């Protein structure tokens, strides 16, 4: 027990490197809050355990699956424009559904409708491999989601969720990630809670995880009942977070505590 640890941990905060933007305006990536050792794990694609998932995703891309006898590559070339900026754009409005779609939901829609293949479970190795591989193709590019036109009500809903107090601890996302970014809560250093590195390899998880997994953990930590993976609440929140990180480079797969 005892006092909150406030010691310096030797983290190296840098605004940008040759290809990456870690700080823009008043917004900072979680990378800038990590120790230099943790940054080193992220930056080395052998040391970064999530790169196994990049390999797996690349293999899945050309794997034929489902009744239609197709793979993703049958319609989407590996060097397509879609893949190069997909990590900067999601979640995206789907006119047919009349709401936002996360990348996971889009992948499953394509699998079912175009490939006749079974959907992937949200936190499965296959889904993580696909989303990590796809978002990694946009690594270095600035986060740039649309918050205009049909997405406006969903963006507003995400923003409202972010500012809303919840749980037994009666706290909102903003209480930690806006009011106290840079302060410590017990031994953890609070970041801005940016999403630009997700799915992220968290040292705590010892594996990569989706941002919805992180949302569920955060909600449980303030003793609130978490929403489901792929719930409207979390997809809307995902859009708001992506907007909060506008201009920061996609870092997928990032490494964080």
């Amino acid at each position: 027990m005892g006092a909150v640890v406030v010691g310096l941990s030797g983290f190296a905060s840098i605004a940008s490197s040759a290809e990456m933007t870690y700080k823009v305006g008043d917004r900072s990536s979680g990378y800038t809050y990590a120790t230099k050792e943790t940054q080193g794990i992220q930056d080395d694609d052998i040391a970064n355990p999530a790169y196994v998932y990049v390999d797996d995703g690349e293999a899945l891309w050309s794997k034929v699956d489902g009744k239609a006898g197709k793979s993703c590559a049958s319609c989407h070339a590996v060097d397509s424009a879609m893949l190069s900026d997909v990590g900067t754009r999601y979640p995206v409005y789907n006119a047919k559904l009349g709401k936002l779609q996360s990348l996971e939901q889009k992948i499953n829609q394509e699998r079912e409708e175009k490939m006749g293949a079974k959907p992937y479970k949200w936190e499965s190795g296959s889904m993580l491999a696909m989303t990590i591989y796809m978002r990694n193709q946009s690594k270095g590019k600035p986060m740039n989601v649309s918050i205009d036109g049909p997405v406006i009500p969903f963006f507003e809903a995400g923003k409202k969720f972010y500012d809303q107090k919840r749980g037994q601890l009666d706290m909102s996302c903003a209480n930690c990630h806006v009011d106290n970014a840079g302060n410590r809560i017990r031994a953890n250093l609070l970041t801005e809670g940016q999403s630009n590195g997700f799915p992220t390899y968290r040292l705590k998880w010892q594996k990569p995880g989706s941002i919805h997994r992180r949302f569920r953990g955060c909600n449980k930590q303030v003793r609130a009942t978490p929403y489901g993976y792929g719930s409207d609440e979390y997809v809307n929140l995902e859009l708001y977070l992506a907007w909060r990180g506008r201009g920061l480079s996609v870092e997928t797969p990032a490494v964080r505590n």
Partner: protein
Amino acid sequence: MAKARVKAPKSVKKGEVFEVKTLISHKMETGLRKNKKTGKKIPRKIINKFSVTYGGKEVFGSDWHPAVSANPYVSFFVKASASGPMKFQWTEDGGAVTEKTVNIKVT
């Protein structure tokens, strides 16, 4: 077989000392954790040996204990002798082996 990734330079000069980086996906279950629901001990299952062969002999070897982190990363150095394969072997408790080979080109 577990998934492993290895990085070595594409080509090296004879006598050059070069760095090799390796990673294997593995939980490295320590044997100290308990199943939260049943209270039963989760049995130990780690990679306990990592060996690198080059030029027909072991150039680097290691014994691992449960204190080695999950998804073990090891980087080490090798002196370039002749072109040929460099073989990596990870051995798990119980004997299962994961192998990977890269070709080292020496000019």
